[in-house]
């Protein structure tokens, strides 16, 4: 390729050769800039964060008296918010996608729902934060709590789930549906036994992407789920466990990072949290690729 293009440029006028060379240089330069930038970003974060990362840091609650730094509460809060959000958003998103691909007959309604989904997808997170504060924390009386945070994140992740589920529903062959209906099953039976099982990988992909967005989100959770760095008091019974989810507030990983860096100017733990986030982002990327790859194979 290289050899060939050189021989082509030989016979060209000066202007065209200059154009060719400049453009090629520009393309390679931007590629180099981006690669260097990426390498620098990763290297810098890892280099500054890893020395501070230890089992103790991950598994303890911070205590000023004992002089311990720890992000266990942040890890647990993140997990809490992820699970609570997925439990709410998954049925809604999958149901919505099923309605759009299997049931909807009214074109106007479909385009209305799709418009709404696109609007939600393009909304900046700070808007979800504002609305979450008024609607969930104040109007619905949840206060600043992990649950209010989860509800606000439901609005944010709904488009992701709807879109990926819809994509995978579209790949289910029409003949499956016809076969099922011809054997006398009703529509719901068909959806439950034929369509949904063959679109599981799309739904899984959606979940993974949603988890990625939730873990990376900070603005929404800062205002709806709080910034506390203490471990919530989790009760030992099932009922108390859920009650604590309603009541407790606290920082997730991203908010903890913000806390360390901006509020306390304590940068070493901030970088350690950044490394944790980087690792999570990396794992989510791989998981999404795997799930998406299976989807594409079909």
């Amino acid at each position, binding site marked *: 390729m290289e050899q060939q293009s050189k021989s082509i440029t030989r016979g060209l006028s000066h202007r065209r050769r200059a154009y060719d060379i400049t*453009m090629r240089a520009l393309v390679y330069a931007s590629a180099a800039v981006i690669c260097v930038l990426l390498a620098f970003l990763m290297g810098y974060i890892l280099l500054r964060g890893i020395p501070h990362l230890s089992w103790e840091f991950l598994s303890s609650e911070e205590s000023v008296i004992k002089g311990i730094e720890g992000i266990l509460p942040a890890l647990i809060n993140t997990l809490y918010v992820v699970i609570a959000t997925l439990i709410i958003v998954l049925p809604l998103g999958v149901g919505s996608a099923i309605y759009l691909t299997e*049931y909807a007959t009214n074109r106007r309604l479909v385009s209305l729902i799709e418009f709404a989904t696109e609007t939600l997808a*393009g909304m*900046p997170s700070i808007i979800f934060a504002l609305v979450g504060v008024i609607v969930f924390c104040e109007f619905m009386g949840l206060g600043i709590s992990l649950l209010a945070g989860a509800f606000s994140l439901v609005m944010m992740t709904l488009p992701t789930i709807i879109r990926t589920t819809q994509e995978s529903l579209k790949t289910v062959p029409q003949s499956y549906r016809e076969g099922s209906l011809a054997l006398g099953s009703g529509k719901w039976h068909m959806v439950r036994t034929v369509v949904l099982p063959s679109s599981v990988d799309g739904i899984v992909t959606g979940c993974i992407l949603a988890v990625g967005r939730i873990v990376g989100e900070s603005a929404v959770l800062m205002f709806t789920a709080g910034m506390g760095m203490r471990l919530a008091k989790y009760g030992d019974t099932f009922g108390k466990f859920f009650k604590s989810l309603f009541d407790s507030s606290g920082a997730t990983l991203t908010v903890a990072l913000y806390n360390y860096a901006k509020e306390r100017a304590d940068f070493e733990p901030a970088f350690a949290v950044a490394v944790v986030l980087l690792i999570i982002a990396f794992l989510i990327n791989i998981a999404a690729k795997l799930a998406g790859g299976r989807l594409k194979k079909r």
Partner: protein
Amino acid sequence: MKLPVGKAERPGGTAAENKAAGQARTIDGRRRLKDLMEQFMKAVFLVCGLVAVGFVLVISLYLIISGIPAIHQVGFFEFFFSSDWDPANKSGNPSYGILPMILTSIYGTAGAMVIGVPIGFLMAVFLSKIANRKVAAVIREVVDLLAGIPSVVYGLVGMMVLVPGIRVLFGLPAGDSLLAAVIVLAVMILPSIISVSETALDAVPREYEEASLALGATELETYFRVSAPAAKSGIAAAVVLGVGRAIGEAMAILMVAGNVANMPGLLKSVKFLTTAIAGEMSYAGGLHRQALFSIGLVLFLFIMLINAVLNMFLKKNDKEGG
């Protein structure tokens, strides 16, 4: 023999009839139940489908309801065209002009575009046309990872690298500035610019490029004068998407922009629409808080406008593709 059998058969027959009738009845009942279930599930799915619409309505309504009062109270003209933002004035004379933030958001976004779009576009050309397949695949993975990094991490690196760098380079007392925010935003929009423009470039029919090469154009001339114009609406969509991302970003630039409501200047500490909300929400009260919701409303309108433009490009894209 025959008679008893017949006799025996007859009651049996009626029993069978009864049974059949009963079965029919239960089948009927089951079918009714099934129909009911069908109707019920259809309604459930319809409700799920309408949730997204409901969310958008709730967001718009609440932003309008809680955003309008402050604009009304401050006065439309003062709110939008006064360059004074000082809600916590000590002498009890607060002022609520959001012009600095609107301009900062616009300048910041424009700056991020000026840096990010050319680099991102050239990178997309590299990945789509020039790089060999393996190299491109590796770079694509890393760019995807870049998209998955939380914004606070960008903010952190910006705080530790860019801000001190700018302070030293320009001999300023503090490096928190519009320039730092612009660079952070430019890096943050790169992944979406790269991937959307790459998709657009990949979709250009191979024949166009082959025809151009056959007519004696060089490869680079082909990519920039044939492929890029053919993919222009996809690239435009990438740009608009980047604008949406940049104008809506809050946390990363909150950490590097300095957060003083100055009129925008490249090396001045500035406050964006988003960072005003993110930075002041936690302590604001009364009219100040309401004014933050008004800022949210302004941001919402900006985003709706950008989305409308984006949809226009995407629709055009679909048409060209079909």
